[in-house]
């Protein structure tokens, strides 16, 4: 089934590999944004089926972006998966308040990312 995914990450290298990985392994359409602000704009415009959101970004970071997505009725229903290189206990509590669909660890394996996203969201592999 064709899906559309929005990936939001300020690091060009990671954004590009994630995009390739989802396009090539799962055949999904991928939209990429380099900042939280751009992510909000593209989410409203393209209505993706899910959003992969990096936690640590300059400016509006991942959790802040997730909150804004949640607050906008246009995007509130889109499941959000956080991507993070580290889970501190304090962060974990912060993530819990965001009602995100899941948290995936960085670095990710490009071969596995699409599977991880599918299984986090309960999509049939």
């Amino acid at each position: 089934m064709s899906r559309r995914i929005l990936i939001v990450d300020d690091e060009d290298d990671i954004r590009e590999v994630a995009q390739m990985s989802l396009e090539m392994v799962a055949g999904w359409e991928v939209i990429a944004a380099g900042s939280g602000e751009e992510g909000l704009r593209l989410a409203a415009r393209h209505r993706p089926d899910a959003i992969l959101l990096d936690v640590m970004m300059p400016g509006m970071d991942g959790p802040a972006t997730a909150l804004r997505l949640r607050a906008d009725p246009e995007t509130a229903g889109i499941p959000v998966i956080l991507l993070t290189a580290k889970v501190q206990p304090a962060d974990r509590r912060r993530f819990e308040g965001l009602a995100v669909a899941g948290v995936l660890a960085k670095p990710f394996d490009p071969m596995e990312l699409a599977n991880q996203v599918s299984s986090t969201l309960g999509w049939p592999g």
Partner: protein
Amino acid sequence: MSSAPPRVLVAGFPDGVASFLARQLRGATVETAADAGAACAELARGEWSLLLLDGEIPGGGADGVLRAGAPAPPTFLCLPRGGGAPRADLQALGVTRTFFHPLDRQALVREAAAVLGTPSASRPAAEPGAHPAAEGKADALADAVRQAWERFRGPVTARVDAIEAAAIALLEGGLDEETRRHAEREAHKLAGSVGTFGFAQGSRLAREVETLLQGSAPLGQAEALRLSDAAVALRRELARPPSPSTAPPPRARPAAERPEGEPAAPPRPLPLLLVVDADAELAERIAMEASGRGMRARVAVDVAGARVAVAEERPAAVLLDLALDREDTGTLALLADLSSHAPRVPVLVLTARSSFADRVEVARMGGVGFLQKPVAPATVVDAVEGVLQRGRQGRASVLAVDDDPLILHAVETLLTPAGVEVHTLGDPLRFWEALEEACPDAVLLDIDMPRVSGIELCRVMRNDTRWSATPVIFLTARTEAETVQRVFAEGADDYVAKPFVGPELVTRVTNRLERVQLHRALADSDPLTGVANRRRSDELMAQLVHLAVRNRQPFSLALLDLDHFKQVNDRHGHAVGDEVLRRVARLLERAFRAEDVVARWGGEEFVVGMYGMDKDDGVQRMADLLEQVRAEPFDLPGAEPLRVTFSAGIAQFPVDGADLQALYRVADATLYQAKEAGRDRVLPAGWTAERPDAAEQVDVLVVEDDHALARLLLHALETRGYGARWMEDGREAADALTGSRPRLRARVVLLDVDLPGMDGHAVLRALARDRVLERTNVIVLTVRAHEAEVVQALEEGAFDHVSKPFSVPILLQRIRRAMKM
């Protein structure tokens, strides 16, 4: 068709669209413009084959760009869906095709390829006979990731600069908050990214740096050296080709006679570790540690979740918390299931309780290991690595010799699925070579072969100590009592009658192999670390020396001994000491190749036999490992991380010793020298300390007024056994090196150009005047890219130059080269 590649301008879209097009349109150059102004400027500047323009481009909208008056290339315009009535004027403005958001990328690629006349890489479905979907995708993705790494290697590696800067600031006693946070952020980014490109170890190193810099605890000189070691290790890691897995590549055994064109085995996916623990946080931390070390990890917080996970994909190993439910019935049942169904999944049990009864129960249920909580994630993952390693080593191999290719094919077909690696040989005259190359755990021999019979082959094996204990199984069509008696008399272990039936051959061979392995596991490996023991290493090294002679290859032997190990045991207890030994053994196994031998000789002494390596190469590899060990302290629950170093001596066959005994003696004496010289270093045999005669002789003289940099360099040089001296003043260096009876002789001088008093150029000229340059090579250190200065230095007689800031490994490489000239 024009010869220049077609050029596509993508204006007003997120970067992803451009990179997608660049990948999909082969041979086209794709560039981007963020806003209308940039788009107009680009259009006016060059010849474009296609413009892809977003209708809502910032800075004036699409109309401004379309009306700008530049000769417009064919243009695709992308508009919001339902954005009002169709516009009639678009065609007049050069728009050849209109798309709507959300962009249909496949249609875009098709249309663009048609306009440009380029092949599109899109949709492999269009190519008949393409790869089977899954494998093709994985290969294509792996390629794409490799290409992406080529593009990002520079900027990503540059992040290490921030860590190095923090190390240097710290050495100078002035690490300010901003530098520290910047380095922490860069380390965080490295930790989160490089693993994705195939540098799991790099992610792990970066995470350690991040942890070290976190918080606001004051940092000292020890942390500075750790940071600098980690930066060096990171640079080295990122300079090597990425590997999708940290597991050592499978040894390419030269199969004696494998049919041509047999497809290589598909790359194995990373091993999956299932962590079953009600403590989600601990589980998550373990999972992260594991994913940083080349495994995939999955977490389940209860038995039901674990069963679902196992049903979906059988893990390579399971970590199971025994305290999951009060009665433990579900957990123990899961444990029993995992261990009883083939293929058996090794289960490591984590528990906060440590009663003897638990251990017995766990062992009875088939658990392979027992870890007592609280325990550091790194320790848990070490144990998992150990278990997986055992599984890998457990793969047994046989060499089957028969002149009938059908029989060989049958043997291979039957035994391979049973987990046995099969080497086949059709020409018995090549038996000896094949035997040495394959080093099989058992040999299958046909009795009747042209020129040489199986019985004769068996006899020569039995007469050679290396093969006298290897099981031999005969394949024979003759089962009369006389023949059977004869094969046993020649030393056969078993025979199988031809034509054989599958189950019989498999059972007989695997029985034999299991016994061999059990015997070997007990007799040949060091029980604490799992690496070879002394007896086994003697055997293996004798084989390597034999091969080295035959193939005219060098062979080097390293003896290494942990520094101050007794203190580790005294201060932290033997359990920690054992853990350190296991970890070092694991690092050694990871650092050396399958054709090398790694063994523990008891105590804290390890020996490594390196095939095809001279001792200088050996010193470099061992010093790399030392830096890695230094950079990765051992986490101790509730205590400061433990820093471990070792000393090593390396001797080369046959220049330092004509047989193994002599090599051992020389390596041992060299190890002693390394300890005497201050420990924490690797020395080659024949190394001489600076002689106290009239002229002091050193390998490297560092003339540098930057104290922090000089200290870093001396540390790296001493690790490699170079005799090094440091002077911070140009005049002092020139005075010491010149004159009729110079006080100091150096093979290589590292000379900073900017020195107080007498600068680098003046020093060089003084050395040239005095003919010092005839025996000393000078490497000039310049500040980034002052070309005139470099040219001047080379004209003045410098051997080489390196510009600052430089990476330590690169400088070391240049020093080695200067040393050899």
